[in-house]
């Protein structure tokens, strides 16, 4: 074992090395820290550790100093010499590198005092920021593989299944099917002398969702341990992790973790001397969204075209190579070891009546604290958006939140006190999905949002069934027309009709749920559609072809002194005037690109 594992250090510097922080130069920060620590002769006292995603991606690159839980953010390499000398050598924490909430004067030094972290309950993300994901011993130090030991030596497969059933754990990939029940089906399916399989679905594709990537990067062993426990429960000896090739860091950490687990005999033959054999293979997906659908995913693993097939038969009965297969999502697997260790009773005490435990959401869009949050089921949208998310930037008004990705829907501001669980989200026309949460403010056009999601599903439709292939295209064309001011009054009814028939007749989940963003925006924001169609206006001024740009001549002259910037930037020569005179937009020539509006420093350009 390497020497660093033996030695005690007085300080551990936990540098976040999730994808977001890495792209913000966290490895550069790590190198700078190590260099400076050596320079100050602190290398025997201070250890630099790279961890998985801390969650507060907005503020990266991040550093948490333990013990003490001191939180540093938005670090730059030039800050490091000062930080090392002041804090790590002289013991004086550096305030200017700490997190200061918007509108507040003093920084908050301690991580657990920051609102973003306060309301979170970590189960799937239990090891985030606390271990180096590339060191199996650190996972073991935090009870890692102890649930596996328990499951292999103290529990019968049936007991494991019952424990997971009693915990109330449901699929975290979107569908929300009870996990224990699925395991029971698979374990009871006849194999005709063939094998059963375990699959981990890591084909995360919803725009704005990154929790599965984060879990694989931050704690790959949690997923592996969950899968081995599942394998024991259903009697499988082979497993697959299907992960997108666009997640290079997740793939490399997973490969490393699998090697380490094999080295310790936690995968392979006779695991922990229990006589149980199981191993896991990685299959890299090429990034087709439809491959997140379980039957398409299995086709892809088998080497066939990633296209879905009708269900039933469900994978539990006929899965990989027509054998019973248990497919769960990354986050679901990561929950399993904790349930085995801490009991179903403990787990089912968290959450609501129908949805137990926690859910990881990726909080993105028009929100102050972008990041990854794990919260108990039943928490309200308000708590997530206002308390954890820190509200909407620039004092704008909250308009809606889109959950569940392209399969989900938009929940309007009036439902901000909605407690979140599988059922409540479905009731308002959205869904849990994989946990993407896109926050929108008053400057968002809901017709444009619907168009975006339909264009996404339309691009990702595999083309196998007509409703999805042609239906989403037809919906896109109508929405595109509306946003260009060519909408007709009957379009709204037509959209609703199309949406309903696609929902009923598409082959797989992708098509069945594709109309949801349109249906929910129609339900809650019909007036916006009507204004687009009847008045040929976009209230949020997003659909540029519906905008009219004018220049307030008084402001232009009195405040801006006719600065001429708009005219210089107009590519269509649609602005008249010269320096020190008031300018005008020549409407016949205007191509509505909005550049004049963007460049004007005096708010003289108005949009209607």
């Amino acid at each position, binding site marked *: 074992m390497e020497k660093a*594992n033996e030695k005690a250090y007085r300080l551990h510097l936990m540098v976040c090395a999730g994808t977001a922080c890495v792209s913000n130069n966290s490895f550069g920060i790590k190198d700078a820290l190590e260099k400076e620590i050596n320079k100050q002769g602190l290398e025997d006292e201070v250890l630099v550790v790279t961890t998985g995603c801390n969650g507060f991606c907005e503020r990266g690159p991040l550093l948490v100093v333990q013990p003490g839980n001191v939180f540093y953010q938005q670090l730059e390499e030039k800050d490091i010499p000062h930080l090392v000398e002041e804090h790590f050598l002289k013991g004086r924490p550096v305030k200017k590198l700490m997190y200061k909430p918007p509108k507040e004067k003093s920084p908050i030094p301690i991580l657990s005092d920051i609102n973003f972290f306060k309301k979170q309950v970590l189960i799937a993300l239990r090891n985030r920021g606390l271990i180096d994901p590339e060191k199996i011993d650190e996972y073991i130090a935090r009870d890692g593989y102890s649930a596996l030991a328990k499951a292999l030596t103290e529990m019968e497969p049936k007991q494991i299944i019952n424990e997971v059933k009693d915990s109330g754990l449901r699929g975290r990939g979107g569908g929300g099917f009870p996990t224990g029940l699925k395991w029971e089906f698979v374990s009871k399916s006849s194999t005709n002398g063939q094998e059963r399989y375990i699959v981990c679905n890591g084909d995360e594709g919803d725009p704005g969702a990154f929790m599965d990537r984060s879990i694989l990067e931050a704690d790959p062993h949690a997923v592996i341990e969950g899968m081995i426990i599942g394998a024991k429960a259903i009697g499988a000896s082979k497993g697959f992790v299907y992960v997108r090739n666009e997640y290079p860091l997740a793939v490399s950490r997973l490969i490393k973790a699998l090697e380490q687990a094999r080295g310790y005999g936690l995968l392979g033959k006779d695991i922990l001397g229990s006589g149980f054999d199981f191993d896991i293979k990685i299959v890299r997906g090429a990034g087709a969204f439809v491959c997140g659908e379980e039957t398409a995913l299995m086709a892809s693993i088998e080497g066939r075209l990633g296209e879905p097939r009708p269900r039933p038969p469900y994978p539990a009965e006929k899965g990989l190579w027509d054998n019973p297969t248990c497919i769960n999502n990354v986050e679901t697997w990561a929950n399993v070891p904790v349930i085995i260790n801490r009991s179903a009773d403990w787990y089912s005490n968290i959450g609501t009546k129908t949805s137990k435990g926690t859910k990881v959401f990726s909080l993105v869009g028009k929100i102050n604290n972008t990041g990854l949050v794990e919260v108990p089921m039943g928490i309200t949208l308000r708590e997530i958006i206002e308390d954890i998310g820190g509200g909407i930037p620039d004092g704008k008004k909250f308009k809606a939140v889109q959950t569940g990705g392209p399969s989900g829907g938009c929940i309007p501001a009036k439902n901000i006190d909605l407690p979140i669980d599988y059922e409540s989200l479905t009731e308002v026309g959205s869904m849990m999905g994989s946990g993407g949460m896109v926050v929108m403010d008053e400057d968002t056009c809901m017709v444009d949002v619907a168009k975006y999601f339909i264009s996404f599903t339309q691009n990702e439709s595999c083309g196998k069934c007509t409703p999805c292939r042609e239906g989403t295209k037809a919906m896109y064309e109508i929405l595109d027309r509306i946003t260009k001011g060519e909408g007709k009054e009957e379009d709204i009814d037509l959209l609703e009709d199309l949406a309903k028939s696609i929902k009923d007749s598409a082959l797989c989940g992708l098509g069945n749920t594709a109309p949801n963003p349109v249906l929910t925006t129609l339900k809650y924001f019909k007036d916006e559609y009507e204004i687009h169609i009847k008045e040929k206006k976009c209230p949020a001024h997003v659909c540029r072809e519906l905008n009219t740009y004018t220049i307030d001549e008084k402001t232009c002259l009195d405040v801006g002194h006719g600065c001429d910037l708009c005219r210089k930037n107009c590519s269509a020569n649609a602005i008249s005037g010269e320096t020190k005179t008031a300018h005008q937009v020549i409407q016949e020539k205007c191509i509505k690109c909005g550049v004049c509006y963007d460049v004007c420093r005096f708010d003289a350009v108005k949009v209607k």
Partner: protein
Amino acid sequence: MAKLTIDDLKKIKEKAKRRTELREGGDYRAKVTVHMGTCGIAAGARKIMNAFMDELEQSKSSDILLTNSGCAGLCSREPMATVELSGQAPIKYIDLTEQKTKEIFQKHVIGGNVVKKYALGKGSEKTDA
């Protein structure tokens, strides 16, 4: 690497935990603060810190927190350290040497008895206005 048995797994856990426990932020029985302002460092506080670290490592204790802080204000009596056992008033030690450090660690931090001959006094300044 050989295949693990359940006992091996437990051993790895104990060993790795001793090193990583410090990240958990739990309750510590004792907190040792070495004052490391410029004055402290000039007077040899680094040696004192190292001596505490050696003692800590040898003791294999996991409930002792060793940390540093800035100048304690009494620059002429550096190097200084403060030992605080949970539930007891902090004790400040002055004019430390490596030898004194070892004695303080054994007798006070481990044994619970204040080493009066090296102590400046009890308590810390008030920080509330």
